[in-house]
C-alpha cells in the first residue's frame, strides 16, 4: 500500500447527466510508466483532468500517498508536470521568459538558471530569447516539454504529446521520457501511438466507453499488441 503513489478509489465523472467516466478503481506504484490507450471518447482525457485536479470527480476520491488530493490541493499540484497538446506558453514572451515565469510560480530556486538549463536540455538554447510566436510547431512543443519539467515533478501526465510533433521534437520527448523512467518518475501517458506507447509502458490501461477494458502487465509481444488492443476495445 505504501509504494502506491496514486490510488483511484471508484472515481467517476458526469457532465450533466452524461457519464464520461464510470467508477474506476486502480493503484499506481511509484516509478511506473502507465500508458493509457483507447478510442476517442473513452474517457482518457477526463481521467488525466481528474488526476491533475483540473476537474472534480462526481464521486469517489483520488489518493496521493494515502491522502486525498482534494485536501492536499497546492501541495499536490506542486508535484505534477503536465504536457498537453496545448503549448501552455505566452506567445508574446520568449521561451526563457515563459519558463522563468512558470518556475517562479512553482517556487523553484533560481528560476533563471533552471529555465536556461532545461531549454538547453530540449535543444532550444539558440532561440530561447526570441518570442514564442516566431517558433515552429516542433520548437513550441520542445519548449512546452521543458516547461512541464521545471519543478522536477514527481508525476508527469502527458495527454497525446506526440500529436503533430516533428521528428526532432518527438526524438527529444522520447529521450526525456526514457530519462524520467530511469529516474523513477511516475508517468501517465495517453497516446494513440500503439508501438511507442507499448514499448515505454510498465503497465497498460486500455479504456473504452468510459470504462476500464484492460488493466495490467504487458502480456503479448510488441508486434501482437495491435491485435490485442483491438480485441479489448471491441469487447469493451
Amino acid at each position, binding site marked *: 500500500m505504501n509504494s502506491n503513489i496514486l490510488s483511484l478509489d471508484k472515481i467517476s465523472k458526469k457532465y*450533466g*447527466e452524461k457519464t464520461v467516466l464510470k467508477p474506476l478503481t486502480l493503484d499506481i506504484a511509484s516509478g511506473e510508466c502507465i500508458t493509457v490507450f483507447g478510442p476517442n471518447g473513452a474517457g482518457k482525457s477526463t481521467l488525466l483532468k481528474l488526476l491533475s485536479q483540473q476537474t472534480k470527480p462526481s464521486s469517489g476520491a483520488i489518493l496521493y500517498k494515502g491522502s486525498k488530493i482534494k485536501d492536499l490541493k497546492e501541495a499536490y499540484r506542486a508535484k505534477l508536470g503536465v504536457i498537453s497538446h496545448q503549448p501552455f506558453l505566452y506567445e508574446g514572451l520568449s521561451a526563457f521568459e515563459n519558463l522563468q515565469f512558470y518556475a517562479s510560480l512553482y517556487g523553484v530556486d533560481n528560476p533563471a538558471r533552471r529555465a536556461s538549463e532545461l531549454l538547453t536540455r530540449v535543444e532550444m538554447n539558440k532561440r530561447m530569447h526570441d518570442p514564442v510566436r516566431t517558433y515552429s510547431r516542433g520548437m513550441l512543443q520542445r519548449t512546452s516539454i521543458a516547461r512541464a519539467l521545471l519543478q522536477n515533478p514527481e508525476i508527469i501526465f502527458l495527454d497525446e504529446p506526440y500529436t503533430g510533433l516533428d521528428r526532432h521534437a518527438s526524438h527529444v520527448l522520447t529521450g526525456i521520457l526514457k530519462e524520467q523512467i530511469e529516474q523513477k518518475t511516475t508517468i501517465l501517458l495517453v497516446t494513440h501511438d500503439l508501438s511507442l506507447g507499448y514499448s515505454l509502458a510498465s503497465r497498460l490501461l486500455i479504456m473504452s466507453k468510459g470504462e476500464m477494458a484492460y488493466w495490467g502487465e504487458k502480456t503479448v509481444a510488441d508486434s501482437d499488441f495491435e491485435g490485442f488492443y483491438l480485441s479489448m476495445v471491441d469487447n469493451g
Partner: protein
Amino acid sequence: MLKSKLFFVIDVLAIVMIPVALWFAFFYAPLELRMGAIQKIFYFHVASAWVGFAALFVTFVCSIIFLIKRNHFSDDLAAASAGIGLLFCTVVLMTGPLWARPTWGVWWTWDPRLTTTLILWFIYAGYVFLRKFIDDPDKRGKYCAVLGIIGFFDVPIVFLSIRFWRTIHPNVVQSGGGGLHPDMRTAMFVALGAFTLLYISLANKRVRLAKLEREYYTAE
C-alpha cells in the same frame, strides 16, 4: 404525487385569481379622483414589480445553492426565475410609461425605482443571453450563478445611486399607506397575491420543462 397535486391547485388558483384581481382593481377599488381610470394600472404595475424583484432573490438563493451543491434543480429554478423576472420587469417598464404620461406628463422619468427596474431588466437580459451562449451545462450553471449573485448585490446599490441622483416617484407603501384608500390597498394586495401565484405556477412549469429537456438530450 402530492407535489403534482399541490402544483395543480396553484395553477388553478393562479387562473382564478387573475380575473379576481381584475375585478378588485376595476370594481372594488374606488376611482382615483385626480388620476382617474389610468390609476387602475397601478395594481398590476406594483404586482409585476414585486414579482420582478422577488424573482431576483430566488435566483440569488438558488445560485448560491448551485455553487455549493451543483444540483440541477437549483440551476433550473435560478434560470426559470430569471426568465420570469425578465418578463415581469418588461411588464413594469411598459405599464410605467402608460401611467407616467397622463400623470406626470412624460413617458419616462429617470426616477430611482423606474431606473433600477430598467437596470434589473438589463441584468436579467444578460443572464438569459449568457445561458444561451454557453453549451456545457455545468459551466453555464456556474457562470450564471456568479451573475445571479453579483446582480443581487448590485441592484440595491443601483437604487441608492439613482436616489442620490434624483427622485419623483410617489411613495406608496413605505410611508404607511401614503394616503392610499383602504379599498385600494386591498385591491393591491389581491393583485400581489394573484401575481405571486402566477409566478410560482410559471416557475414550476419552466423547471419541469428544463428537466424534461435534459432527460431528452442525455438519453442514450
